[in-house]
């Protein structure tokens, strides 16, 4: 350990996590809970069957506002921002000119000329600098609201039942990937029906100083219904089962949006944007590699992040994320493999501690909730 705990950044909920006896880890420079005493399996199961509450205050928030705001966000991201209604949110990315990732993010349309961009904690400073660097050509202001903003994510099938008694805002009419503003437990919030777990749920953004009150209110309302505080450990297994990308794993500055399987956020016909030329060229030529889902065949063969995919003793690809899946009961993962091998039903080999073990390519997402 080179960084002492005192040098790590802390969210407004740091004391609350410690009071809950969370196991804390260094996550991209943030002192964050990886799990609470219940453990990753119990927290994962709570989110799939009841509800879990996550601290995601470490995420970055960038507000872009002004007559040129729409044009700036259209320029910086591949998804069709002009199609967003006020109160709607979508998943997208910041891309370099070569089509690889600066980061992935959510874009919230707050008004005709106002957008809230929610980015990864570890990339927050880089992202803010990236937006600032491109903003001068557009008539808009760019504000980093991260330090002033807290965020918690209530995820799981009981989320609506737990949250509704705490707010006068009718929650049921908020569609998936829509949001509104309202009060929760008397505290001003942006209430967003989004998440990173594959379950129904709400992400609540509030003033940093209100975060602990909001957390405590939701915990109190949810605990009788089986809500558990949930850490980064189960956040990772939950998102992996749903094949949701994680920066530094499935996506980074060496991987472009199409090979990552994120063609659905790339609207090549929307007009010019950063990375469009490279992605047009990539679309014309067959991609040499593709992201696939796999399961290993033996219980003892548990692949992990960054392990090599091998063929005849040579590395031909790599695992991006892998873990024993709590919901599916199998050892699964995601990997980049040569396109000619990237077929469901095909077999690949993964090198696990010096042993090449068989894995089958299977359909993704590994888990999908019943509607």
């Amino acid at each position: 350990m080179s960084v002492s705990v005192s040098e790590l950044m802390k969210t407004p909920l740091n004391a609350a996590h410690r009071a809950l006896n969370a196991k804390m880890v260094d996550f991209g420079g943030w002192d964050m809970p990886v799990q609470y005493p219940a453990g990753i399996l119990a927290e994962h199961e709570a989110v799939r069957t009841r509800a879990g509450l996550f601290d995601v205050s470490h995420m970055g928030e960038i507000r872009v506002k002004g007559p040129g705001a729409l044009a700036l966000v259209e320029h910086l991201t591949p998804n069709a921002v002009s199609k967003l209604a006020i109160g709607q949110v979508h998943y997208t990315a910041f891309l370099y000119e070569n089509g690889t990732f600066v980061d992935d993010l959510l874009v919230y349309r707050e008004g005709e000329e106002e957008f809230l961009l929610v980015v990864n904690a570890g990339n927050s400073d880089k992202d803010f600098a990236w937006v600032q660097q491109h903003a001068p050509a557009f008539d808009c202001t760019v504000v980093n609201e991260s330090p002033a903003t807290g965020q918690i994510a209530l995820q799981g099938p009981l989320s609506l039942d737990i949250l509704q008694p705490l707010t006068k805002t009718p929650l049921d009419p908020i569609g998936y990937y829509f949001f509104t503003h309202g009060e929760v437990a008397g505290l001003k919030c942006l209430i967003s029906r989004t998440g990173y777990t594959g379950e129904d749920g709400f992400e609540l953004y509030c003033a940093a100083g209100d975060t602990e009150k909001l957390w405590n209110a939701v915990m109190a309302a949810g605990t009788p219904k089986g809500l558990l505080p949930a850490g980064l450990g189960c956040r990772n297994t939950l998102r992996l089962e749903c094949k949701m990308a994680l920066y530094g794993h499935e996506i980074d500055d060496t991987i472009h949006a199409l090979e990552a399987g994120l063609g659905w956020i790339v609207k090549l016909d929307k007009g010019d944007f950063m990375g469009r030329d490279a992605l047009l060229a990539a679309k014309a030529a067959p991609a040499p590699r593709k992201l696939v889902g796999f399961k290993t065949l033996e219980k003892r063969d548990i692949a992990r992040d960054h392990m090599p995919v091998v063929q005849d003793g040579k590395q031909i690809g790599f695992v991006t994320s892998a873990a024993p899946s709590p919901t599916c009961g199998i050892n699964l993962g995601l990997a980049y493999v040569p396109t000619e091998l990237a077929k469901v039903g095909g077999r690949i080999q993964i090198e696990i501690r010096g042993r090449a073990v068989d894995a089958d390519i299977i359909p993704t997402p590994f888990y999908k909730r019943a509607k």
Partner: protein
Amino acid sequence: MFPADLKYTKDHEWLKPAGDGTALVGITHYAQDALGDVVFVDLPEVGETFEAGEEFGTVESVKTVSELNMPVGGEVLEANATLADHPEAVNEDPYGKGWMVKIKLAGDLSGLLDAKAYEALVGAESH
């Protein structure tokens, strides 16, 4: 947390001598807590022999994997078969039902830590 009748390694294994030249081996409470939920324990076959410090298996949790190293040299007399279906025993009862192998001791125990020395080591790591 640190039973006095056990010997410990700095890699967080424990060894419990039976007094008849055999001993049980497992991982400590500190180790299981650091790993989190254990989902699989890969153990050796009966009859395999290992040197002190040699890897004899692995323990996999949801988030990570850790090598199991033999506290002293010895031959495996038995591997804990119940861990195949109940790996959670390592978390729930690391010094009891979560034992991993029974060995015939081939070396002496003088290189191992007693409970006090292990407690001091773990205290130093967690602060």
